[in-house]
């Protein structure tokens, strides 16, 4: 995916990061920011270590917030055979944050459980048949099934954050390494890009993000999506008017992540994604960077409609 979509490797990510640091000093302008995002991120106990502060006085979110690597493997040795059982159920976050997968698709819940979830996105009545059809045909129609980025918010919180004065960079490396992505988010008052600034660039799966600090919480506002983003695996479509507000707050080695999704063309009301709590990964120094190509070869062999 990464090579087909972006065409460059992580070296370029950091070149882009350097460019971002130099670009975000442009004139500040009024930002359209959410006012109704719920703050349900203040229920955790006292942090185990102090929250680092960046040079500009804001909490420093820099760190690797990915603890998946190997943590979920159930490894046993039987004679000369090493048996690796992959995770088959989603670990409750409150009970074991070390097993908190950094994805939001809830693919480890059953399809029936997700369909019965009262907190799933609420679609306009006229769109429900289409959502149900996409759900039925997910195995063939899901954009993420065809090497496209899952987009925001399906990617969940970033696996790594790099923060500097006036800019935050989110890096993504999916648990299965099937894609990676990045977002460069100005936090210096820069507005969303205008059509002129886009200079012909298309809307994307990751959108255009700007950030601002509300006290100790980083609020990221994202628009300019391409209409091909699903909010989850169950056919949860979106329009080009998708608008995502993410809130991130660090407490010591813990990162609280919450996202609110607005899409007046698709949803009857904003969808508040279940909040996530991530723990700082001090064991690894970086996300994986192999970046093999993505080549989807299953679609022509799928014969029945089951999906996760």
């Amino acid at each position, binding site marked *: *995916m990464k090579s087909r979509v972006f065409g460059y490797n992580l070296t370029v990510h950091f070149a882009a990061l350097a460019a971002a640091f130099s670009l975000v000093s442009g004139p500040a302008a009024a930002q359209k920011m959410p006012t109704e995002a719920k703050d349900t991120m203040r229920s955790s106990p006292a942090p185990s270590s102090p929250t680092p502060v960046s040079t500009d006085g804001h909490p420093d979110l820099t760190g690797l917030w990915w603890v998946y*690597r*190997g943590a979920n*493997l159930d490894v*046993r040795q*039987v*004679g*000369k*055979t*090493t*048996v*690796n*059982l*992959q*995770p*088959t*159920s989603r670990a409750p976050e409150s009970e074991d944050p070390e097993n908190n997968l950094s994805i939001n698709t809830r*693919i*480890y819940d*059953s399809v029936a459980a997700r369909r019965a979830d009262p907190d799933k996105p609420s679609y306009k009545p006229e769109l429900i048949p289409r959502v149900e059809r996409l759900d039925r045909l997910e*195995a063939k129609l899901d954009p993420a*099934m065809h*090497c496209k980025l899952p987009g925001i918010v399906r990617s969940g919180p970033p696996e790594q954050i790099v923060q500097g004065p006036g800019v935050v960079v989110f890096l993504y*490396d*999916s*648990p*299965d*390494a*099937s*894609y990676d992505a990045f977002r460069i988010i100005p936090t210096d008052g820069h507005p969303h890009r205008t059509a002129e600034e886009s200079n012909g660039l298309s809307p994307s799966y990751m959108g255009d993000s700007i950030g601002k600090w509300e006290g100790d919480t980083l609020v990221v506002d994202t628009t300019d999506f391409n209409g091909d983003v699903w909010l989850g695996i169950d056919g949860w479509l979106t329009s080009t008017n998708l608008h995502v507000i993410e809130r991130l707050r660090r407490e010591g080695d813990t990162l609280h992540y919450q996202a609110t999704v607005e899409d007046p063309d698709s949803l009857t009301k904003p969808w508040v994604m279940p909040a996530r709590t991530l723990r700082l990964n001090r064991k690894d120094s970086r996300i*994986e960077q*192999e970046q*093999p*190509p*993505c*080549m*989807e*070869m*299953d679609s022509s*062999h*799928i*014969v*029945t*409609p*089951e*999906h*996760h």
Partner: protein
Amino acid sequence: MRPKVQDALLVLCSLLAWSIPVLAHHAFPAEFDVDKPVTLTGVVSKLGWVNPHVYVYLDVKDSTGKTTTWSLESWPTGILHRSGVSKEMIKEGTPLTILAYRAKDGTNLAYIRKFTWSDGHAIETWFGGREPGQPQ
């Protein structure tokens, strides 16, 4: 503990796990049949170290000497690597025995459960779920 007991415990653990196998990309039963296991011994003719699934192309000779190339699908690169199977271990020219489950469309495609190398060591990369022969 004797191996048979360990094996039985493994099967039990698998049965206690989820009833629907979970792949990161697509649902296993949409494409593969857990009731059609196949054990193939041959030589890797090509390795597709790609996402969302690694493909091992295995040349398998039958008793008449005819060679059939099987497309054998596995986890994404990251998960397979973390499971202990590097691309070096399954590179072109490597003799392998592979336990896999056949595609429902009847093609020479199967999903890998277990790699066994010529020195006898093996790595099983699986996700629990229903075992062959068990009720739906």
